[in-house]
């Protein structure tokens, strides 16, 4: 790529980096891993920059890479590691401790969901994607998104920590 295209890519990446890392965090509960996933997505976008820059919706392309890259990671680590979905408890004081507790509870609840359900929740309820947009990112049917979301919400509904006392 020439310097102008590199500069264009740099602008593209600056504009989307934070959101993509946050998506990765929603899927993994781990900031470092989320940054790795985002890096992978942007590196692939750079490798196909000519096509990505002309695409109607490059964000969907990036999100799909992040979701799939994390799914592959899940498959790879399943044998070697046990993903407990439990966030280690840390000692904090006062309000900070409450906030931390709320966040940890939500991360733990998300990590307890099967991966498809977790991805559906983050894409539908944090990124506010439509069911068909979510289906495209997950590579499944709209019906599958509906059932995954519904099961995920039912499971989260049973978590007393999550839905007590309204939004944090």
């Amino acid at each position, binding site marked *: *790529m020439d310097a102008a295209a590199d500069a264009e890519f740099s602008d593209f990446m*600056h504009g989307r980096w934070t959101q993509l890392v946050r998506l990765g965090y929603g899927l993994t509960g781990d900031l470092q891993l989320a940054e790795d996933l985002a890096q992978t997505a942007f590196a692939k976008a*750079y490798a196909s920059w000519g096509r990505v820059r002309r695409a*109607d919706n490059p964000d969907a*392309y990036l999100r799909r890479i992040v979701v*799939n890259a994390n799914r592959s990671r899940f498959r790879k680590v399943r044998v070697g590691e046990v993903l407990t979905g439990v966030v280690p408890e840390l000692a904090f004081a006062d309000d900070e401790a409450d906030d931390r507790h709320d*966040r940890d509870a939500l991360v733990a609840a998300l990590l307890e969901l099967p991966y498809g359900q977790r991805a559906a929740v983050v894409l539908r309820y944090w990124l506010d994607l439509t069911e*068909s947009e979510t289906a*495209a990112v997950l590579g499944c*049917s709209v019906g599958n998104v509906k059932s995954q979301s519904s099961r995920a919400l039912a499971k989260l509904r049973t978590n007393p920590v999550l839905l007590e006392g309204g939004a944090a």
Partner: protein
Amino acid sequence: MSSHDERELRARLSVLLDDVEPSLPPVTQVVRRGRGIRLRRWISLAAGLAIIAGAALVPGLLQGHRVSPSAPLHYKVTVTALGKNARDGVVGAGTIDNKRWRVVVTRSMSGCAPETYLLTCGLQSESGSAGGRRQATLDYAFSGRTQFELGTVGADVTRVVIWLSNGTELGIRPVKAGGQRWVAVAAPPQTITRAVSFVGKSEYQYALPYLAGGAANFVTWLRPGQAGLPVANASVGAGELNGVSWSAAVHTGPWGYCISFQNSIGSSCVAAASAKQLLSGGKLLSLVCGPLYTSNGKQTGAWFGVKVVPSDVKDVVLRFADDSRLRLATTAVAGTRVFGYAIPARPAAVRTLEYGVTGHLLHSIAGGWPC
């Protein structure tokens, strides 16, 4: 769960994720990785080219049912009849060794995302429009274990038949989605040998693939009985610039013109059934052009390309802005002459002089460089 609960979940996710503050975007690191990915793609393409080069040594091997050395010997592929209109965007389905494969098109994404047995593509992405009422296109995607072919066909095309190396004929009826008529198939790597499109019950066009890293790349469609370009492989240039060695080769055949090169990005194929067709658009046609990279993916600031000229041009001389000159010898390939080049970005090349066999000036063309 009520809509109140959904709102609450949205709010909690917002608090959780909007608070995440990542480090600064590592643009340089990402660009380096991106170049590495492109380089690896090139390497896998080069492997495909090596297979082509080997096959070309045996006359006639590239015609009809060609079995490449790495193609699996035993496999079974089927396609499922889907009806005229796509359901849930599914435009292709079937089995490979009893495992189900699917090809899905969607408005909600761009580009294509191949997985082992699933290919999802944006409606406007790879294949684009088939153009005329009788035209067909097929683009490939490769997941490592499966190659997919996805394309669109014009309104008059009734079916497309894909031939496999074990003699299987897969008949595919177009499926409508997003205002286009799609055809799709999946098969093990290096097993697709031929595609034929039908208008009514008659064969209208056929295409023989160029093997690109295990996947069949259908570039040029030919009418029945039309032979296309002869199979030829030629080195069309090599050298060193800014400490980087480069070389370029052209591979012609029924698939068209395909170019492989070292120390630049990607690869390129150009559709052409004949040399005349290729050159009809201009005297000095660029087949491929891009920045020259080092072997570890760093940009050198120089440019690299391959151009084709009519068969009466023997030498091409580039004149630069500082009045220096570079002479490039052309190589005869399938009724044309082709040359590769690597040139610095500065000083700019401002004029091209084309010389014939006897050394006389044929054409003087302004600009057009580095591409």
